[in-house]
């Protein structure tokens, strides 16, 4: 295992930069996983507008209006002192003043013009929202007054209050819903799926970088010539090199998954953990094979980072690592299916969709769908490994 040992030694000499890259990529994955769970619904919080509510009379109508306004605004305890109110609105302590003039209730019930007097500060947008709520409330009452003239004011107020509580529910369609997840799976969905999907970029990138840098040493024409003169066959040399590089890949894979379990502890013990990790292991295998192949085509150190970005980022974008697969067009997905990244992401989605129960995961494992995704990744890995071995043998013969 002379070549194997030397390859590990060469990797050891690159440990500094590799550790840095590994840290950065793990950080990116964790960042993406932690921020990925915030849906539009979670990000939106309703704020209450600070206002002053000055009533020059007291009546059930005014009380009802105040109750309605309180739903969207925070009524500040200000007395009817114009100087204090103006100062409060000037210093933005309140955004709006609603004044109910004396005789308002009587005028409203009589069907006369009954206007609420409002003063707006600098936050006109927020004030408009309050005005709209006032108008909405009064218009609803007006409807009751016109169409049910015999109804008592208290009854009108009660009905209007109930009517206005009715809200149209708007639900944003997310990839969770689009891909058929249950509501109780949402929280875990983002953390798990995004973290593991991101490995298709982070682990792939670090493997191309690490393996290419390592093989650059062995790919020197003179070294290849010298090794070709030795009694160690080209096949044995290549396999030893691949094993050493796969050992490096396993180390990175173990580290990434250990970190994932540390930062996503809820995954530990669930049945889906095993399938996520199995899928991640397949990623480790085919990413090593592709990196091993690519490393034989890399001529200079300067080209390594460019190749890393093109391959890892390109396949990630194409296969739905950053943009969910359901948002990608059919043609894009068809093209992406020629990359192992597509099958990796698909398998992760299938695992996440099954949830974490033992029965769901074991039934999923027996499904042809997931097995096909796993199988495709194995085929890609073996194909690239075979291509790399053939290329290496040809280059060994062409060394002179």
């Amino acid at each position: 295992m002379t070549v194997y040992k030397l390859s590990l030694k060469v990797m050891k000499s690159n440990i500094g930069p590799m550790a840095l890259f590994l840290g950065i990529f793990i950080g990116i994955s964790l960042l993406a996983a932690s921020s990925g769970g915030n849906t539009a619904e979670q990000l939106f919080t309703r704020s209450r507008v600070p206002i002053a509510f000055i009533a020059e009379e007291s009546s059930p109508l005014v009380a009802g209006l105040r109750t309605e306004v309180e739903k969207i605004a925070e009524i500040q305890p200000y007395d009817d002192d114009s100087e204090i109110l103006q100062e409060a609105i000037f210093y933005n302590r309140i955004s709006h003043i609603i004044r109910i003039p004396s005789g308002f209730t009587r005028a409203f019930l009589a069907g006369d013009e009954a206007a609420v007097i409002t003063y707006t500060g600098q936050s006109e947008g927020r004030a408009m929202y309050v005005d709209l709520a006032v108008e909405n409330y009064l218009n609803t009452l007006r409807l009751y007054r016109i169409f049910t003239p015999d109804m008592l004011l208290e009854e009108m107020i009660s009905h209007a209050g109930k009517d206005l509580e009715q809200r149209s529910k708007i639900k944003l369609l997310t990839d969770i819903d689009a891909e058929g997840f249950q509501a109780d799976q949402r929280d875990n969905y983002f953390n798990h799926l995004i973290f593991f999907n991101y490995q298709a970029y982070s682990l792939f990138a670090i493997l191309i970088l690490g393996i290419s840098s390592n093989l650059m040493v062995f790919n020197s024409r003179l070294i290849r010539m010298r090794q070709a003169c030795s009694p160690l066959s080209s096949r044995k040399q290549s396999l030893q090199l691949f094993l050493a590089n796969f050992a490096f890949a396993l180390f990175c894979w173990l580290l990434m998954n250990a970190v994932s379990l540390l930062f996503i502890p809820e995954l530990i013990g669930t049945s889906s953990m095993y399938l996520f990790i199995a899928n991640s292991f397949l990623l480790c295998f085919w990413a090593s094979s592709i990196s091993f192949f690519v490393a034989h085509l890399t001529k200079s150190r300067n080209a390594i980072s460019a190749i890393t970005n093109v391959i890892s980022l390109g396949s990630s974008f194409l296969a739905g690592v950053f943009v969910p697969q359901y948002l990608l067009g059919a043609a894009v997905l068809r093209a992406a299916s020629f990359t192992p990244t597509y099958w990796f992401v698909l398998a992760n989605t299938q695992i996440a969709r099954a949830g974490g129960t033992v029965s769901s995961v074991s039934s999923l494992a027996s499904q042809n769908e997931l097995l096909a995704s796993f199988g495709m990744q194995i085929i890609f890995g073996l194909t690239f490994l075979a291509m790399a071995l053939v290329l290496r043998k040809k280059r060994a013969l062409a060394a002179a």
Partner: protein
Amino acid sequence: MIIRVKELVKRYGDLQALDNLSFNVQKGEIFGLLGPNGSGKTTAINCILSLLKYDKGEIEVFGKPMSPDSYSSKRKIGVVMQEVAVFEVLTVRENIDYFCGLYVQDAERRKHLVQEAIEFTGLEGFENFVPKKLSGGLLRRLNIACGIAHKPELIFMDEPTVAVDPQSRHKILEGICELNRQGATIIYTSHYMEEVEQICSRIMILDHGKEIASGSKEALKAMIDLGEKNSFEVYDISDEQLMKLRNMPEVAEVSYRDTMLLIKSHKGSNILERLLSFFKQESLPFGRIYSEQPTLNDVFLEMTGRELRDKATGQGVQT
């Protein structure tokens, strides 16, 4: 017989790098391949080592046809390449240990072999240096140590002394002779005729991929008409005196340039005494005198009309 090459042909497109080359190498020989740069020496070695595919011909090493999969033969071969081929990230000892490890699996035996190679090439004290910290001469010695550490029976040395200081060159050449004394058969290529003359027991002169001549250095020199070469430092000589020298029956060639008068004699003629008498008779004052036997360069010159090395630069002639 260790190596048998028969009618070897190698073409690079229209260029015929090896043209029906045939030769044998016997056990215990130091066989020199001499020729200017581009004459086909390295191509021939690469073909023998199966690093290059060839168009025609047969190659046998240790009595077996040589192919990329001839691992039993490769185990007994050591190669010292023209360019230094070592790992920059490894120290001197680690490099030797790695290349020796490709041949010898036993760690304990390898340890001894590595130490022997270090001592043999005079790299003691530099064991823990990385290659970029070594001088050109030490790098060459490391290159040799990596090629011979496993004690091969057959060693290919492709211009191992290129760009090496005289001290390292002397050390390297001494080492090669010592390896030969220890039983190794050596194929040595160079365009430095002095080196080949100094160490090789048999020599083949190549030009344009073809054998020009082969044999021991004495046999090669016997193939040409040139006898000894006498050079005199003369500050003034007339055309008439030059003519008299040219008319001497033993003299093959006379030239006078930059105060140096060169007189070449025909084979078998020893005319130094006769020339000294001539100078006395003509009252021709002279300074230093050099007298030398023909070199392999003279052999090459007489056979090809060109010199092995470009005199202006001391480098090989590009062909």
